Each structure stands twice: as structure tokens, then as C-alpha cells.
């Protein structure tokens, strides 16, 4: 991206402009043709399927799952291999639990009591980050105790740590391989997509079939979701290392290993730490779902509170998860920027070392304390502020519901009749081949022949799952949610991107939106908007908008100063500046935030199924709950993955295009 955006020398921008208008032309042709045939042939070949009916493929999936269930105990190789994995993960997790959360033997406190943990973790935070973060960690941890969830929080932390450590042990070396060998990366990418987009509900039951009920299953479920970011970001980190420095190292006679160790990894370190951060966040987002198969910790409290629609308690526990997330996120983020700082600033090592030793001694004393004194072992009291928070939350939601319920119907109806219904009616009534060809066409327009092939494979795959009609219903809601998400992303992203102060205030709220378990806000939403697709869309937006906003804000803030300066110099007003300079320059960020918006919205399809959205999400949930629908749930999960991959690739192609154009 360069200043040509402003001063457009005619000879350079003409081809780009021509290309863009050609693209617009093709897109409008495609839309018209699609609408024409969709309406002309409506009702033909829409492939509907009753909720309780099964296709042969789905029956076959059922029998596969049955077969696994019946043979798990009888097949010795199976049991041998899996038992080893299970036992080692189990002892790993319980080991951590005994250190930080569960009483061991005849004691009433774990190996390290709360006081020891607070001091030790604050010290670690200081060592990897700075004193501000250390204070944040200390106060966050104490807050968990005050909420009345010390042990639950530590259980959650133990499980998260176990999953993250395993994800890193597996993910970083594989990520390095992917970074070094493009072919391996190509091979592994669809698997990672699969692991990230496949709804967890789908494999919750099979995992317990293999690994039985217990920490191992919970850890593996979390691992499946947390591993991809670790692997991907490590690969990206290696890609980011300028090839020129690797080449220089090789030209001086380094072996491949030396180049990796001395040149690539040190430079990739910062991004890898960012990957660790993402891994931790991903693991934390699985806390509530893993609780469905008995994962210990805060998730259980949330699920339990949901049974009696106890908004207060579920919020109380959700807050615990948010605090844990903020503490871990800020620590790893600060650690990442410290990696940067260490590179350029010569920190006074000697003083630093003295402080580290002092801190170590202090932690040690605190740990001893926590083993001698009861007050330092078990968090005193039963949570001083927890029940108050629950009570205030209840009051606030009641007030809100009482006052807003008169407007909510209007909103629900406006969005439903105005957006969702028309879109859903077009998509579900159009013949599958018309919509399918439209998708392939989109793929070809944006990504050429290759993307066309990917799209057609996805379309045929979805048809193969037997759930085309449900997929189209889900797609309609997904699109509406994505549109709203992107709109919110642009509005807030521009605002935050332009104002540091807004950024500082809004960001924590965005973080909370991303990690607060959806279960916590589903009940109030249900109260306001009923069991409707709109409620599902709303839940999806709460989860997806933060990512969209952040990407957009980073894009706006990242518009090079030369461009904004030129804009100011040209005398642009604030709005001209936003519309004519900043938004066009952040085109790639816009495309990326759309891409991420859609992926995040898709991640909430299952949650949507829990609040009345129907479609694939409901089928996945039903498959988890009913043995006879397991195969259908699996098929629905598969359809979500295929839809996800297709939408992801198309939006990524759009993003890549806007980069290219931007560079012209």
C-alpha cells in the first residue's frame, strides 16, 4: 500500500481500477443469474430431510460409532495404545491438580496453598513480563478467591495448563516442520481446519468412548481445539522470518539446523509467544464444553447454574473464567513484547538477576507458609463478594428484562422478517445445484480454477452429508450474523483505531466478550428475544464481533502515517479522512475481519442450536444427546466443516486480492 491511493497517477491506477470494475461486473452477473434460476426453479431439488429421518450415510456413521463402542474393550492393540495415552494424560493432569487445586492424601489443601500460588505466579509474571503484570496477576488471583471459586479456578487452570503444555509439545515441533516444509504444511492445513471448525459436541461422545470419562478426555477435547493455533502460528512465525537472513546464514556455511537454531527460531520467538497466547485462549474457551464430560472447574459451575437458569451464579463463574483469561492473556502478551524489548534494549542484567533471586526466595517462603498455616492453605471464607455479584447480576438482568422486553419483539421481528426470512427462503428453496454452482462461480471469480474446485468439493460434500437444506438454513443465519458482525466491526473498529483512549476502554470489554462462556449470556438473551434464530445470531455476534473489531481497529491504526499525513495535508475533514483514506487503506483488514467474523460466527452455530436456531447446530446437539442421532450429528458437524472451509477460502481469496490491489 502506498501513497498512490491518494495521488493516483493515472497510468498506474487504471489497470487496477479496470480489474476491479470487471470483478464487480462478474459478481453482479453471477448474482442475477443465481437469483433468476433460484426463483424460477424454486422448490425443486431442495433436498429437505426430516429431523428424525436418517440417510444411509448417516446410518453408516451411526454403525461406525457403534462399532467403536463395541470393540474398544475387545481390541487389544486399541486398548493398549489408548490406555497408555489415557493413563499418562490422567496422571499429568492429576499431578498438576495435586500441586495447585486438589487436596492430596490426608491434607485439606493442595501441595501449594492459595497464598503460595498467588506469590509464585506473580513472581513468574514479573520474571517473564513486568511489575505491572505481576500486580495484575496477584489481584486477579485474589479476586478468584473472593468470588468464592478458588478451587474451581485452580482446577480450570490445571486442566488448561495440561492441555496447553501438551498442545505446545506437539504443536511447536509440528509447526516448525510446517514452517520449514511447505508440502507438509499443505498436507496438514485441512486437518487443522477440520479440528478448529468441527464442533466439539460432535466428538465429545466418541472421545469418552475411547478415553473414558475423566481428565484425559477433557484434556484431549481441549487439546484438539487448542493445538491448531499453536501449530499454525509457529509455522507463520517461521514464514515471517525474512528469507534473506536465512539465506545469508546458509551462504556463510550454516547447516540447516544451525540456520534454524541461530537464525529462524530466535527471530520467530515473539510470534511463537503470541501463538502460546492464542493456544491458552483457545483452551480456556473449551472450559464449559469440557465440563459436559466432567471436566473439573469453573465450567461445571456454569453448566450447573444453567439447569436452574441461575443467571447470577453462572455469571459469577463466567467472571472467574474471564479473570483467568485476562490474567493469562496479559501475561503472555507482555511476555511477547518483552521478547522484543530484550532484543533492542540492553536491560540491566545484574539488577534484574538480584530481583529475580529475591522474588524466588519470597515465593519459596510463601509456599512454605501456605503449607504451614491454614489461612494460607485454603482460601479463607466462602467468597466475600461472589454472592453479591450473583445477586447484582440477577437484579440487573431482571431490571433490564422488565424494561426492554417491550422493544425486543420489534427488533427480533425486524431482523427476522427483514433479513433472515427472505435470505433463508431463497437459500432453502433454491435447487441445490443452482446454489452450488453459484458457490463454485464465486470461488472461480475470486480465486480462479483452484478455488472453484475446492468449492465444488465442499458443495458435493455437503450434499453427501444429506443435510443440504439444514446447511442452507444455517448459512442464512450465518450470513446475517456475519453481516451484522462486520458492520459492528467497521463502526467500532474505526472508532477504536482512531482513538487510543477508546481502545483502552473498549478492549477489555472485547476480551470479555470473547472468553465469557456463551452459556452465561444465553439465558438473559433468551428472556429478551425468545428461542429464535435472532437470539442465536445475537450470541454469535457477541462472540464474533470482538475479533472483527480488533482486526479492523488494528488495520485502521496500522494505516501508514505517510498516508494519513498526506490526507491531512490535503485538508480532508474527519469523515473524508475515514471514508476516503483510512477505510480504503485498511481494505485488507476489512477483508480479514470479514473472514474471521464468519469463522467465529460458524463456531457458534452449535450454541445457536441450543437457543432455537435449528439447522445444523440443533442436529449436532441432538446427536450428542441421543444415541440414535449420533450419525446425523456427525454428518451435521461435517457439513459445518465443509461450509466453514468453503466460506473461509473464499473470503481469504478476497482478502488476498485486496492485498494485491493495495500493493499496486
Amino acid at each position, binding site marked *: 500500500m502506498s501513497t498512490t491511493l491518494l495521488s493516483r497517477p493515472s497510468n498506474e491506477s487504471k489497470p487496477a481500477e479496470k480489474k476491479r470494475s470487471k470483478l464487480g461486473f462478474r459478481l453482479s452477473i453471477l448474482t442475477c443469474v443465481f437469483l433468476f434460476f433460484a426463483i424460477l426453479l424454486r422448490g425443486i431439488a431442495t433436498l429437505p430431510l426430516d429431523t428424525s429421518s436418517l440417510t444411509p450415510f448417516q446410518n453408516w456413521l451411526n454403525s461406525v460409532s457403534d462399532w467403536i463402542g463395541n470393540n474398544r474393550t475387545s481390541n487389544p492393540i486399541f486398548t493398549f495404545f489408548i490406555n497408555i495415552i489415557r493413563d499418562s494424560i490422567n496422571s499429568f493432569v492429576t499431578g498438576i491438580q495435586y500441586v495447585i487445586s486438589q487436596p492430596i492424601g490426608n491434607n485439606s489443601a493442595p501441595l501449594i496453598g492459595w497464598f503460595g500460588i498467588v506469590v509464585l505466579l506473580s513472581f513468574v509474571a514479573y520474571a517473564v513480563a513486568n511489575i505491572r503484570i505481576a500486580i495484575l496477576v496477584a489481584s486477579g488471583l485474589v479476586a478468584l478467591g473472593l468470588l468464592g471459586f478458588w478451587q474451581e479456578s485452580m482446577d480450570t487452570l490445571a486442566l488448561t495448563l495440561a492441555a496447553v503444555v501438551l498442545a505446545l509439545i506437539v504443536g511447536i515441533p509440528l509447526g516448525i516442520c510446517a514452517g520449514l516444509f511447505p508440502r507438509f504444511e499443505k498436507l496438514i492445513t485441512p486437518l487443522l481446519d477440520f479440528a478448529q471448525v468441527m464442533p466439539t459436541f460432535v466428538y465429545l461422545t466418541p472421545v469418552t468412548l475411547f478415553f473414558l470419562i475423566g481428565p484425559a478426555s477433557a484434556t484431549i477435547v481441549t487439546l484438539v481445539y487448542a493445538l491448531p493455533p499453536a501449530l499454525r502460528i509457529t509455522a507463520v512465525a517461521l514464514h515471517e522470518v525474512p528469507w534473506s537472513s536465512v539465506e*545469508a546464514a546458509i551462504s*556463510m556455511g550454516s547447516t540447516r539446523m544451525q540456520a534454524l537454531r*541461530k*537464525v529462524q527460531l530466535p527471530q520467530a520467538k515473539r510470534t511463537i509467544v503470541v501463538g502460546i497466547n492464542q493456544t491458552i485462549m483457545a483452551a480456556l474457551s473449551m472450559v464449559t464444553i469440557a465440563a459436559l464430560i466432567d471436566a473439573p472447574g469453573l465450567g461445571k459451575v456454569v453448566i450447573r447454574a444453567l439447569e436452574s437458569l441461575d443467571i447470577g451464579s453462572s455469571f459469577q463463574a463466567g467472571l472467574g473464567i474471564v479473570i483467568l483469561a485476562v490474567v493469562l492473556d496479559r501475561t503472555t502478551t507482555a511476555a511477547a513484547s518483552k521478547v522484543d524489548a530484550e532484543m533492542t534494549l*540492553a536491560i540491566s542484567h545484574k539488577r534484574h538477576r538480584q530481583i529475580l533471586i529475591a522474588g524466588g526466595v519470597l515465593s519459596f517462603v510463601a509456599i512454605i507458609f501456605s503449607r504451614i498455616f491454614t489461612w494460607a492453605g485454603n482460601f479463607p471464607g466462602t467468597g466475600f463478594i461472589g454472592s453479591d455479584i450473583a445477586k447484582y447480576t440477577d437484579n440487573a438482568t431482571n431490571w433490564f428484562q422488565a424494561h426492554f422486553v417491550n422493544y425486543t419483539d420489534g427488533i427480533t421481528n425486524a431482523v427476522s422478517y427483514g433479513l433472515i426470512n427472505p435470505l433463508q427462503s431463497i437459500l432453502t428453496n433454491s435447487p441445490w445445484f443452482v446454489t452450488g454452482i453459484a458457490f463454485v462461480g464465486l470461488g472461480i471469480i475470486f480465486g480462479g480454477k483452484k478455488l472453484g474446485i475446492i468449492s465444488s468439493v465442499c458443495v458435493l460434500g455437503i450434499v453427501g452429508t444429506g443435510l443440504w437444506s439444514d446447511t442452507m438454513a444455517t448459512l442464512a443465519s450465518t450470513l446475517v450474523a456475519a453481516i451484522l458482525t462486520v458492520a459492528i466491526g467497521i463502526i467500532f473498529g474505526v472508532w477504536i483505531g482512531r482513538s487510543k483512549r477508546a481502545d483502552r476502554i473498549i478492549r477489555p470489554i472485547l476480551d470479555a466478550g470473547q472468553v465469557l462462556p456463551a452459556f452465561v449470556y444465553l439465558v438473559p438473551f433468551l428472556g429478551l428475544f425468545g428461542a429464535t434464530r435472532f437470539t442465536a445470531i445475537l450470541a454469535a455476534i457477541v462472540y464474533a464481533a470482538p475479533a472483527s473489531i480488533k482486526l479492523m481497529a488494528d488495520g485502521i491504526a496500522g494505516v501508514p502515517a505517510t498516508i494519513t499525513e498526506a490526507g491531512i495535508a490535503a485538508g480532508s475533514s474527519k469523515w473524508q479522512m475515514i471514508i476516503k483514506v483510512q477505510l480504503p487503506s485498511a481494505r485488507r483488514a476489512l477483508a480479514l475481519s470479514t473472514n474471521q467474523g464468519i469463522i467465529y460466527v460458524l463456531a457458534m452455530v452449535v450454541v445457536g442450536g441450543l437457543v432455537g436456531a435449528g439447522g445444523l447446530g440443533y442436529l449436532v446437539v441432538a446427536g450428542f444427546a441421543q444415541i440414535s442421532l449420533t450419525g446425523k450429528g456427525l454428518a451435521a458437524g461435517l457439513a459445518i466443516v465443509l461450509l466453514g472451509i468453503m466460506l473461509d477460502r473464499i473470503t481469504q481469496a478476497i482478502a488476498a486480492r485486496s492485498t494485491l490491489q493495495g500493493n499496486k
Partner: protein
Amino acid sequence: MLDSQAPMISVRNMWKVFGANPEQIIGNPDADLTRQELRAKTGNTIAVRDVSFDVAPGEVFVVMGLSGSGKSTLVRCMTRLIEPTRGELRFEGEDILQVDEKRLRELRKTRFSMVFQHFGLLPHRKVIDNVAYSLEINGVGKSERHSRANEVIELVGLQGYGQAYPEQLSGGMQQRVGLARALAVDPQVLFLDEPFSALDPLIRRDMQAEVIRLHHQLGKTMVFITHDLAEAVKLGDRIAIMRDGAVVQIGTPEELVAKPADDYVANFVRDFPKSQVLTLRWIARPPAIGEDMNGPILPPTITVNNATRQIVESNLPIRVMENGNLLGVVTSQDVLNVISGSEL
């Protein structure tokens, strides 16, 4: 001087084709398409096309050409940072394309080093550790490699910056770090890919002087890429001009200016003050009938610039003589033609 010895480096029929199935392009009619046509048709790019030349020990061999003509690719092929698609490459007679990884690393560690167009510094290492990198992987102890690194850092005029990180330096300073790094192992052959493009004119002149010194005092062999004809003429014993991957002409600066092989080369050298490189040999012409043959005598090896004064001051045509043979005559009109560029 050039023909008498066995070459240090010899390149024969070297090709580098980027894209899928590179082998199939060579010898195919497709190879004769223009770059754009080939790219559109097969997606391949011929970056180096059937290049052959020798570099003598102690020679400074300059490669020139427009952007994208394949200079960087050629020099990367010569150090096997890129595997050539086809061809032969010998270094002191050793077939480099056949040696194994280990021997290749040994050669890279000790015999040749490279300065990169885009610096290729290691951003996470201080200047001194950048310069000492190759010594480090050679297993040289820390204090020893640091003292050696400090020497070369001083040599390139960066004393006092050893503890800085590359991004704290200006572009020109970074390029000098690259140069220092290449010099640290005391290599026999230096490959320099536009090493001075990022430097300001003053430092550039100093660095050029440094290269000349290295060349003369230490007898280093160099393959030097540049865009700048003045630099090429100043440093180069011979210059190769590349166009779309192929070498269109190799010769001394004088030969190129005097006898450009085609319009491309002519274009290249057009703006260059020819009088600086052309010797009288090139402008001497057979005497016209009735021309006065009693003018002063000058040798053919003197450049026009250096001879201008005498030629202009003499009323009679100058006779250019070598070993007692008359090569031709030169008048002030001929000199004027050279300087104004209408000649040749």
C-alpha cells in the same frame, strides 16, 4: 594477465528456470518466447539463460543489467544458494555442482562469501555477533572471533557500533555490516550483489576505494554486481552485461563502450563519458588521402581524456603508433565527436 592462468571460477552453459518443470523449458521452442509470453504460457521464468564465462584469479568481474535481468539469480547460482537448472560450475577446477552438502558448507565457510543486495542481516543479533556469525559456526572461540570482528568493523568504518542492533543503523551502515561480515572470514572470492546501492556518495567512494585496495593488496577475486556504469568501470577488470537472463556482452569497459554488441548495450553505455574509457586505439582512423603525417606520436593505450590536451593543442593530426607501426591518426575533430557522443 587474464588468459595466462587457469580460471578461478568457470561457468558453462548455466540455466536457471523458475517455476514448475524447469528442465522441460530448456531446449524447447518455448525457451525462445519473451519473458511475459513464457510466464503467461507456462508460468516459468528464465532468470539465467545459457550463461558462460570465466573469472580469473584476482580479477574483479562486474555483472550489469537492468532490474530483473537475472544478476542476483546468477550470483546465487554461483554460490549454489539456488540450484542452477542446468550447466557447469567450477571453482579452481572443482565441480561445484557435484560436491556434497558438507564440502559445500566448507567452501562457504572458508573460501567464498557474499554481500547481499538486501543486506540479509540477522536482526536479533548485535552488529558484532552478525559479523562474527560465520566465525561462530566455524567454531572460533568467543574472544577470538570478537577481536577479529572488531577489526573488520573498524575496516568498514563502523567502530563504536558493535553493540548496536541492525535496525538501529541506517541503510548504508547496515550495508557496511554486510560487507564486514563477508570479510570476516578472509575469503578468497567475494560475491557482492549491489553492495553500495544504499550508500551515500561519499561513503560509496570510500567503500569503492576499499574494494580496490582489497583487490590490489590482498588479491581477492570478486564478482561484483552493480547498476552503476561508473562504478563498474572504476572497479571492473571486465564487465558482463545481462539482458533477460542472457549475457549479451562480456568485455573490458573500453571494449563495451567502443564496440557495444547491440542497441541494448549501446543504450547502457550511452550516457557514460566515453572519453574516460576509450583509448586512442579505438578512435584512430586510417589517414585520409593527403592528410599531413608529421604530427606528434602517441601510444594507443592512452585514454582520450588524457590525450585531449595534446591533440587539441596540436595543429597536425596525431599519429597513433604501436611498436613502430602506425595504427591510425586522430584529430581534434575526432575527439570532439567522442566527447559529444556522435561518434560510435
